[in-house]
């Protein structure tokens, strides 16, 4: 499963959003009411469990959550070093 598919799966699991139609250009933050305080926190939890990462390593900015593509890129930076050490 590639990273984009995994991230979409996390969004679905954490926020109960139908992510099957999302593309890398799809806007997230501000586009879905589920992306509120609880939602973002749940998503970070899901990322921690799915990718075995410390979500503190993920840059917390509006740009990170702006689109699916931005979120995938941000996770790529965090996940790759973990994979290398494993």
């Amino acid at each position, binding site marked *: 499963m590639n990273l984009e598919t995994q991230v979409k799966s996390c969004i679905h699991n954490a926020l109960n959003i139908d992510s099957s139609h999302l593309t890398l250009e799809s806007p997230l933050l501000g586009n879905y009411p589920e992306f*509120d*305080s*609880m939602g*973002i*926190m749940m998503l*970070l939890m899901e990322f921690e469990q799915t990718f075995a990462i410390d*979500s503190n390593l993920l840059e*917390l*900015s*509006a740009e990170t959550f702006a689109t699916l593509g931005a979120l995938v890129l941000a996770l790529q930076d965090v996940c790759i070093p973990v994979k290398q050490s494993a």
Partner: protein
Amino acid sequence: MKNYLLDKIIRLFVWCLLRFSRQTRRAFAHWLATQIFNRSNKTRLRACDNIAKALPEMDEEQIKELALTSYKNIVFGLFECFWLPELDKKTKIVCDEQTLELLHHNNGVSIATMHMSCYELAPFAVQKLLGAVTTLSKIPPFVRSAKHCYQQANITVIDKNQPHALLSLMTAARKKQAICLHADHYANELPISFFSRKTSAPSGAAMLSAYAKTPLLICYCTLKENGHYQVVIETLRSTPVDYNKAAIAQATQALYSRFEQIIRQHPEQWYWSYNRWRK
């Protein structure tokens, strides 16, 4: 333009108030509160209704008296938020050893605060102990100068109205800062029971404890007979809330159970006229 003018008027109003003694300001706040209470059906009826349902042992006369007294305290407390540094010597901070240790651990804390009396004294007291504190506040666009009041009190405020305020808050939590969040207002986030009535609550304080892995504290302020304030900081959880939805919900309910005890102890200090139990 309208907001700019309103802000200027409010600044002028505060400036005029500061020309008078604190005793006079208090008398004026009480007079104003009484006028609003008597003229605004919504304010009066909502406060009386909330008290009647929360404290059914009270009779009608007692309810009305409590509603008015609490409203006077809240209005005066709100006024005093505009000159927090002046209250420095009139504020006593009460905190047990364990809580003090948690605060000074420099590992960050998540502090749930309540709308009681001069409620912004809560973050002010925390910054007095720690040198720094961050809070979240919905600053109305017509009171932009409120940011200046926070700055004067050495409180870092994140405006809830600004885009992505939550991300700024999480960044502050990540940096292990002490974060004060009002937690006793209505928010359609987590179902809880409060004074035996079902309602919803914000998850912020418990969530930040889970996210930043910090202890969860409670802080509230009461006005004493001598006109001085007491700010109590206590520990709800010395260990972080577990990082899952169920634990956050449980911790939020625990907060509200404790809020209820505090309000029962000091019913004349809480903001009863707020629409807390909305449908």
